[in-house]
């Protein structure tokens, strides 16, 4: 037989294309990180992280923005995690497979695809105006938690599903009720997956701008937040302001702010990865 195509050659071509696709994926990420670190490194200092901005944001630190983001995000996760996990337990363990359940599941999938600015407008209409929370931490947190609910529910359902069905059967067969089985067997074993999902959610919502734009974030607040009903500065919005709204902004402060935001998000992801490795190691089945 005489083949015209050399199998080694086609193998090499395929290999090159696949490797290049992979490189194309990581190059932009690394470039972004490189540029931000290079330009922002000089702004980073203890003072930058712990003082108020001065001179119309052109000098001083970004403390209120950091505090504001931490406040909004921690409130949001405290709201969304319990509700999301409970909904996931209901859908996964209790809900009968009927039309209503299928509609709910479809709604969750679709909610995850709604653009975040739409959630921002929804938050403005419902939490800020209708419920009269005003532009505040609580309104922003509620908006973010509604945005993150579908993601939390989906990851929590995945974690619950990964607990083998036989564990439930073994427990039921001993006369243990469904709820006790969930509490004593299913949840403890699903917890690592749920926690990893939650940490990734935290990192995702820390960087969101659109949902807090109309609901929580302020251009400038001269003091730190005193109550959940205060307006706050937030890192992503602050970054947007100083890069577009303020003339003669020193470049290193812009990149320094971006670097702080990036470090917050990346460290969350890192914690999630470490937690996953750890839990996989101690998993008993």
């Amino acid at each position: 037989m005489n083949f015209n195509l050399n199998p080694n050659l086609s193998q090499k071509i395929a290999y090159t294309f696949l490797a290049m696709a992979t490189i194309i994926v990581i190059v932009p990420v690394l470039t972004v990180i490189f540029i931000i670190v290079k330009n922002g490194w000089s702004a980073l200092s203890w003072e930058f992280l712990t003082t108020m901005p001065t001179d119309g944001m052109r000098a001083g630190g970004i403390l209120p923005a950091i505090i504001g983001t931490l406040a909004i995000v921690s409130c949001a996760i405290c709201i969304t995690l319990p509700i999301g996990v409970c909904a996931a337990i209901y859908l996964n363990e209790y809900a009968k497979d009927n039309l209503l359940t299928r509609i709910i599941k479809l709604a969750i999938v679709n909610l995850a695809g709604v653009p975040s600015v739409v959630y921002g407008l929804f938050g403005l209409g419902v939490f800020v105006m209708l419920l009269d929370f005003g532009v505040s931490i609580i309104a922003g947190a509620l908006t973010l938690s509604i945005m993150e609910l579908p993601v939390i529910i989906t990851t929590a359902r995945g974690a619950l599903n990964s607990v083998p069905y036989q564990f439930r059967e073994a427990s039921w067969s001993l006369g243990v009720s469904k709820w006790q089985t969930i509490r004593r067997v299913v949840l403890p074993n699903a917890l690592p997956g749920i926690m990893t999902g939650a940490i990734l959610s935290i990192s995702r919502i820390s960087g969101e701008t659109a949902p807090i734009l109309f609901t929580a974030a302020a251009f400038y607040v001269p003091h730190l937040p005193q109550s959940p009903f205060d307006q706050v500065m937030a890192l992503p919005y602050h970054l947007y302001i100083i890069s577009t709204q303020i003339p003669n902004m020193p470049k290193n402060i812009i990149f320094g702010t971006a670097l702080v935001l990036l470090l917050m998000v990346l460290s969350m992801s890192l914690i999630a990865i470490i937690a996953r490795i750890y839990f996989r190691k101690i998993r008993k089945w």
Partner: protein
Amino acid sequence: MVTKENDKITVENLNCFYSGKQVLKNLNLTVEKNEILSIIGPSNSGKTSFLRTLNRMNDMNVNFSREGNIYLDKENIFDMNPEKLRTRVGMLFAMPIPLPMSIYDNIAYAPRVLGLKNRKNMDEVVEQSLKDAYLWDEVKDRLNASAIKMSGGQQQRLCIARILAIEPEVILFDEPCSGLDPISTAKVEEAMLKLKQKYTIVLVTNNVKQASRVGTRTAFFLMGELVEVDTTKKIFVSPQNKKTEDYITGRFG
């Protein structure tokens, strides 16, 4: 319903369906106190479906439906609280399923959840259950080790011990030795014969020889129907039905 003093379980006109497909047809059967009733039959004959109906594990399957009644000590099990029923009718699955916790916690799990709080009592319950399942000597020094790391035979005996800890009246064995080697099988069978003195046992098995070794009586299921039930000796020496004879002599199945 006609029940004799010695009947533990009475099954009356039981029909079972999965998604409308009939898997058990008009079943009438009694299980007597302190006997081992072994159920033999080819795959798809409804043995496991029958077993899972006895402790209402089938209730967990939304596609399952049934007609007819089952009485445990003259009380209709379908009128009972299913959790309560399962503490009286324990079940051992084909594959050993230890829960992902320590050996001790596996045994203590159900008693703890069901309300036995006292630690000292719990130690006794764990020790006695493991002894009754012929496992105590092998694990007494490592009760806090993970149950997942035990061998298959040990895991299955652990599952027996776990059932004994809730002190049921009836134990259902669903092909308990299908994944075990002959030595582990012998140990499980030894435990079963001992348990007969205290418990009523229903054993589903694909292993005809196992039925002949441990069964007090033997029932033969085929295509969802009870073909024949009698003392094990009679079934194996002079079966009334031709199909039973064909099955136990290995002509089909």
